[in-house]
């Protein structure tokens, strides 16, 4: 499903995909709500590196994620790694057997208001791509 293994080092210009699994994460004007960028209780945010992946392969991964979680895949949010790092977050490669391009956005501040403002910044900088 995936192309050659992505390198562990993630460059600033790498694109990341956050799969949109809830319709309410997407506004009517096709912008994205920050709710979809809030960290999990484990303090990370799951994304997929687009490095070396074709559109078809990327959507296949998204669909597999949605299927595994029994959700609907509405689309994806494309994020630049540089925009994530601008928020003083880290992007850590975290390959999984079913998704070698998996990564986690980590380094979230512990307090909720700071997490929210960062999620708003990420949502504002992301681009929504609808599932075709």
């Amino acid at each position, binding site marked *: 499903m995936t192309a050659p293994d992505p390198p562990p080092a993630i460059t600033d210009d790498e694109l990341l995909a956050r799969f949109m699994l809830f319709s309410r994460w997407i506004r009517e004007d096709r912008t994205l709500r920050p709710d979809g960028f809030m960290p999990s209780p484990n303090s990370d945010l799951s994304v997929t590196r687009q490095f070396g992946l074709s559109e078809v392969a990327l959507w296949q991964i998204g669909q597999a994620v949605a299927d*595994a979680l029994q959700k609907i895949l509405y689309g994806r949010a494309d994020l630049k790694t540089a925009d994530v790092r601008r928020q003083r977050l880290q992007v850590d490669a975290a390959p999984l057997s079913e998704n070698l391009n998996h990564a986690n956005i980590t380094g979230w501040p512990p307090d909720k208001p700071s997490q929210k403002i960062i999620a708003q910044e990420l949502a504002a900088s992301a681009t929504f791509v609808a599932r075709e």
Partner: protein
Amino acid sequence: MIIEMTASTVLSFGAVPTYGASETAQFVAEQAEQGRRQLHASFSFGMDGRGVLEELYSVTKGCLVADWDGYGAAPVRAEAFAQACRFLKALPFGVQAPSVGAEPDGQLTLEWYRSPRRLLSVSITPDGDLHYAALLGPNKAYGTEAFYGEVPRPILDLIHRVQAA
């Protein structure tokens, strides 16, 4: 807009003390008070009519179980739902209806939105804490306020700033 103006008018009228002792003055005062109550009720109904409470219920219902997002999210508790209802009903006249969401820690969110860089999000905890964050162009505002039945002034100000053209 018409309802807002009418509400303001009646509220202003109702706020004027009536010192007359005549039956007419008493009647006018009672009618004004009744009108004020009806308008307040219709405002709450209006929020409901705009689907906010229904949306709140729908989002809550979809997030009642642990791991509702597949990434280990905490469930939304009934107390958070109740606090969100109280918060919505405490919003003053003229405030636009927010949209509703939920976050992985089980908190419900209300969002006022004009653009990706002009928005306010308020997270409501089961204990009644309000965590808020707003982007206002190049400016940011975020923090926490306690909810004691009235919308805290800093949050109300941010709602107005987001709504302002």
